[in-house]
Structure formats: C-alpha cells, structure tokens
C-alpha cells in the first residue's frame, strides 16, 4: 500500500495523540478494535470554543493520519458537529482508497460522539 505525503507525515508524527485530563473534557469514540478500526477524541471546550483536542486510534495509517489531522485542526475553532472537512474532501486530501472510506465515517462518528458527549470522568493519563 502506498500513502501520499500528507498521510505519511500525520501517520509518522501523529500530532495531538493522547488524551486530555481535567474537568469538563468531552470524550467520544466510535468503531471497534476487534473489527479493525476504533477512534476516540477528547476535547477541552470553553464558551463553545475548542481549547485543546487529542485523539487515540486503532486502525490503518489512513485512519490514524486523518484522526491526527482532525485533532490538530480543532483548537481555536468553534465546537461544531461537522469535521473540519467533509469525508469526500478528507478522502481526497489523504488519498484514501474508495474501499477504505467507511473508516472516515468512523472518524466522523467518533467526532460527533465527542461533540455530543457528556464530560468525562477520567481513568488515567496516556500522554
């Protein structure tokens, strides 16, 4: 499998990997490790503005790279249900093969679950 430069860069560097701790952190996850793809986002939000974001992902390099890119882009923006780009745009940016685009929907589901989620009680720090 060949990956484009953006995918390789985000897969190898994984900015914003980890979890957030503290009061009021939003957390949401989607997918299933046993089925090959699982993604989690943590968001720190103040007055509906995203202050910080982290992600965890079990999946292919495209999944990890896109989740990392989404988490990196989130801080400074308004808390919105939509991803920074549509699934189609993300597919193009990361050259995601059509057979794997369902994994982007899992990332989108994880983001939605996070945005709509209840503030978390934390279990530990992975950073």
């Amino acid at each position, binding site marked *: *499998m060949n*990956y484009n430069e953006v995918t390789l860069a985000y*897969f190898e560097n*994984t900015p914003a*990997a980890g*979890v957030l701790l503290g009061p009021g952190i939003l957390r949401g996850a989607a997918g299933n*490790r*046993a089925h*090959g*793809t*699982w993604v*989690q986002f943590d968001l720190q939000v103040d007055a509906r503005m995203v202050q910080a974001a982290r992600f*965890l*992902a*079990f*999946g*292919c*390099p495209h999944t*990890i790279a896109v989740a990392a890119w989404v988490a990196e882009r989130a801080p400074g923006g308004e808390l919105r249900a939509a991803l920074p780009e549509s699934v189609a745009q993300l597919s193009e940016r990361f050259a995601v*093969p*059509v*057979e*794997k685009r369902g994994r982007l929907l899992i990332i989108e589901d994880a983001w939605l679950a996070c945005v709509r989620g209840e503030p978390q009680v934390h279990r530990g720090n*992975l950073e």
Partner: protein
Amino acid sequence: MSRPVYLDHAATTPVDPRVAAAMARCLTAEGEFGNPASASHAFGDAAAALVETARAQVAASVGAAPDEVVWTSGATEANNLAIFGVAEYYGESGRHIVTARTEHKAVLDPCRELERRGWRVTYLAPDGGGLIQPEQVAAALQADTVLVSIMHVNNEIGVIQDIARIAAICAQHDSARLHVDAAQSAGKCPIEFATLGVDLMSLSAHKVYGPKGVGALLMSRGGGAAGGSRRESVQMRARQFGGGQERGLRAGTVATHQVVGMGMAFELAREALQTEATRLTPLRERLWQGLAALGGALRNGDARHSVPHLLNVSFEGVEGESLLAAVRGHLAVSTGSACTSALREASYVLRALGRGDVLSESSLRFGLGRDTCERDIDAAVAAVGQAVSRLRRLSGV
C-alpha cells in the same frame, strides 16, 4: 538513507554471485547460448550438456534421479502440472483429492478449479500449531482418491509436515498419489526423494539464491519407499504442447541459463544446508526472545516442528497495516495478510490455526537468510519494538 534490513528470504532470495556468473555464461555469443534441443551442432550439444548437468545437480541435492526432474517456470507451474496432470491422467479411475487448508494458493487454486469441473476435494484442517496429522490423511482417503497434496514446509509459518508418514499412508492406498510442494524446504531441509515415498515434488530456484522463473517437478519413477512399497511410477498428462521437451511433459525451449542457475543454486544450498541450519536456529530464537519480551507477542506455528529460517509472530493491540507501515523504513518483512485490494484480507493460514482476524492481520513473517546476522536480528527487534509500542500507545491499549 540506508536500505532496510532484509528479512523476507521466505519470499525470495538474491541470486548468489556464483550462480549469476554461471548463468551469464549461457547468454552471450562467447558462451553456451545454443538451443539445448539443437542436436545437429556443437552449440546445441554444449547447451544440452549444461542442462543435463543442472538436472543432475538438482536431483542430487534432493536425493532424486536426474530423469525424475522436469523443468518448469517455478513451483507454481510445477504445482499446477502435478495437480492437473495427475487429475487428467487418472480422472477416469477417481475424482477425489485430499489437501490442506494451509497449502499455498498455487495448490489451493488448482484444487478449486478442479472442484468447478466436478471433482471433490477434502481440505484438511491443521491443529493449532499448523500441523496435519497423518491420521487425518488416512481418514480422508476414499476409494476414488487419486491425489493427496500436502506441502513440506508452510510458507507462512514454517512448520514441517510429517511427509514420510503421510507417504507411507498413501503407499498403502490403491490409487492415492502424493504430491508435495517443497518450495519452502528444498535446499533448506534434508530431502531424500528416492526413499521418502513421494510421487511428485515441486521445487523453486529463487528461494535458495537461484533465479526467479525456473523450478522443477520431481516425478517418481517408482521403486522403494519409506514405510511401504511404492507402486508403479506416477503418470501425468501434459499441460502444454509444442516441441516435446521434457519427455513431452513440458513443451518449450529449455532456458539454459535459468536451469544452470537452479542447478548451481541447489548444489550450493546442499553444501551449506547443515551449517546454515545450525547458524540460523539460534538467530531465529534470538529474534523470538526479543519479540516475546515486548509482551503480547504470539508465535504462530508449532515451534517444535519448524524450519530455522522462518518465524511468524502476531502482536496483540496493533493493527496490521499500520504495523507494516511503521516498520517499512527499517525492515523488509511480510505480513499475515494479503492485499487483494486497498483492503487487507487476514491470512487464511493463520485463520486456519484459529487466530482471529485482527491477530491474523497483525502478524509479521520473518525470513532469515545466508546474510542474516545478529546485528540484523537486533535491528529488527528494535524496529518492531518501537512500532508496536507507539501503535499500542496510539490505540490506548
């Protein structure tokens, strides 16, 4: 940037420089470039002599007679020739075949094609270590079984099947011929074709530092067998026609340089077989111990019955495609999955052993070779360790 450490010798090996030099001498005007079938002049005679020398070298390396060697383009063609050739020759006396779920696709796909043509195929399930018990073969034989095809060494997990006992069982059957795919064992494990009791055996050159594009099918001419008396020599129908080469079984001009390369590669492999096995066994164990220390590493295949040059390990808590991508810059290895499209398909071999999809996909196959040293093993452990730790951290495991 330095090249990755090559640990994919089970996929292919570089051509030995001595082999390459011998091959080159068969290509140009100064060398033996003649058509070995041209009996009317010295050029043809010289090429034919080289072909027969190579035939003798291959035969000697696996304990066969030269006239039992049929050149092919590789083990895949040899497997196809054996399976279809036997099926077509003996098809009127029986239409049942026994094989294993863990065979190479070059055996499974011909079997499936025969099923489409109305044949019945029994696919034996291995135990958790990948072994087929000879008793399973005995139980699967039917009155109209004409062929049993069981590989010697599995190409993914490296387990060695008990071919001698399976051969003895087949020898007691009225019509079951035994074919063995030995692509992964010839030149690496001791083989005595003449006494093993096997009817047909597929060989490949490029797994033992020979060229790609050449292999052979050994066809027993009958005689003694381990554990029982072998029947008459095995017969086959040809698959291709057009010149009568290779006793009419495989038409086409014999590629002198290719078979010369295979002959020398097999001779060199036979000379190095014991010392390489002795050298590689501790290296493979060093690799396993290093990987096991990472935690969550599962060895695939029965370690008590495996070849020294191959190790297959699954890693818990990591996704296979990412694992391969993470080590790719440092390490050339194979995975336990096939890329049939952008989506990966879990290894059918590992699934047959009872591994789930995720563990099957997260496996790496390490193939050690003549140039593999401790430094390579340590580099592999470091690269895999770094990748596994990072991916587990990323996945929150």
